[in-house]
């Protein structure tokens, strides 16, 4: 087993010299671009990297970023958060979820407020922790409010497998797993966003395989490069995109080859398919209702499905965002956070009006933290 060898190793993903050299290479190549290039970074993780390292400032004027819908917290519509709240308010219930979800405002309240009011609401580090909580509380109903893109879905499936294997009867699932490709399709089909290339989410692809992006270049004439999250990963991906444009190619390429393959993690895909199937439709915050854009538990697992078992207490009305909040327009690639009237004034990370400010991967949050680009 070789140990770390400092001097022999590659310079690192944040090395300023490498960043400068890449920025220069992009600037040189970009001189030959026939049209300005608007690149959508689909995933919030990339928005964060671009803002944190000021990558936009390093690039020539004819390259701009359009922030995409790739954050599971940002795209959760208020009625789903109201579901979580209604479930948490049931008697003898423990509601479990992951992370930032707790602070996102629903129509009247948030999970954080309900927790302060005495509901038993817990944020998990790993979905697997739900098992111990269910075993420790046999008299309670434990509900897992599952969120996330393709990245997190297999973890929920692995939890279901354990629940089934161990015969745990008091753990229920409220599934909010959504899928990247339908959202990208909807944004492109809408035709308003001026997008000529995509940076594809890396970790989604670790699971699903880069193959899920293969149709995009042909369909929309926009190259896709699946990129890692380091500044050097992102810059290298941009260079790959600019080169494709100049060479009049339009392809799906993988920059993040240290983790992503074309096929992805097949075992995870099989496990997801065992428990879940495409949902007829799911309403995304800001983008609206899209067919097959999310997953639902298969019929034979209804006994675990909180949405079916507790259906009578779950509100069904779709609820729109606060009138001033333009998260929807931002998620569709038509506006930037500083176009929002209340950005940084009425809406800040401490007083968020919309989920794009709550989520640590949200575009508004990134702009607030790292300043304008």
């Amino acid at each position, binding site marked *: 087993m070789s140990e770390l060898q400092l001097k022999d190793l590659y310079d690192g993903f944040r090395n300023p010299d490498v960043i400068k050299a890449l920025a220069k290479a992009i600037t040189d190549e970009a001189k030959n671009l026939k049209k300005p290039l608007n690149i959508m970074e689909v995933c919030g993780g990339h928005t964060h990297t671009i803002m944190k390292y000021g990558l936009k400032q390093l690039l020539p004027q004819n390259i701009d970023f359009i922030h995409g819908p790739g954050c599971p917290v940002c795209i959760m519509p208020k009625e789903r958060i109201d579901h979580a709240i209604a479930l948490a308010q049931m008697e003898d219930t423990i509601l479990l979820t992951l992370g930032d979800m707790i602070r996102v405002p629903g129509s009247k309240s948030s999970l954080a407020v309900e927790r302060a009011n005495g509901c038993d609401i817990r944020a998990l580090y790993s979905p697997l922790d739900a098992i111990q909580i269910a075993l420790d509380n046999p008299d309670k109903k434990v509900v897992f409010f599952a969120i996330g893109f393709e990245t997190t879905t297999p973890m929920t499936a692995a939890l279901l*497998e354990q629940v089934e294997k161990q015969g745990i009867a008091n753990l229920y699932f409220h599934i909010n797993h959504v899928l990247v490709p339908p959202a990208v399709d909807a944004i492109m089909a809408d035709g308003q966003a001026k997008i000529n290339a995509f940076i594809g989410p890396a970790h989604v692809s670790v*699971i699903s395989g880069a193959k899920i992006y293969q149709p995009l270049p042909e369909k929309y004439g926009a190259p896709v490069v699946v990129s890692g999250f380091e500044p050097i990963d992102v810059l290298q991906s941009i260079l790959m995109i600019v080169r494709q444009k100049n060479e009049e190619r339009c392809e799906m390429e993988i920059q993040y080859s240290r983790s992503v393959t074309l096929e992805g993690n097949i075992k995870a895909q099989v496990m997801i398919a065992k428990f879940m199937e495409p949902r007829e439709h799911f309403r995304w915050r800001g983008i609206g209702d899209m067919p097959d854009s999310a997953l639902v538990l298969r019929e034979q697992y209804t006994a675990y499905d909180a949405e079916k078992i507790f259906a009578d207490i779950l509100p069904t009305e779709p609820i729109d965002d606060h009138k001033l909040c333009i998260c929807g327009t931002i998620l569709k690639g038509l506006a930037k956070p500083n176009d929002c009237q209340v950005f940084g004034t009425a809406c800040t990370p401490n007083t968020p009006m919309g989920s794009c400010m709550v989520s640590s991967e949200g575009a508004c949050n990134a702009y607030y933290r790292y300043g304008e680009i």
Partner: protein
Amino acid sequence: MCLSIPSKVVEIDDNNMATVDTMGIKRHVSLDLIADEINIGDYILIHVGFAMNKIDEEEALQSLEVYREMLEAMEEEERRQVIESDDQCDNRTQV
């Protein structure tokens, strides 16, 4: 953010749970989603308590070196927090 620091497997138990070492911090993760055989010494990428895939050793060492420089400057507690939130992405446990 999901930088995904590569973690090295140091122990595997009967429940398919591995103990991994991420830059000196020990964690327990499930191997349920991995089809490849995982051995002690392998590097894996982790997301919310699960190994997502096995990473090529050379690539793993390269990224580790970068993280090592960043994290070395931090105090133990701070480092633990950074590492634990690293593979969380959308799912940070901070409230």
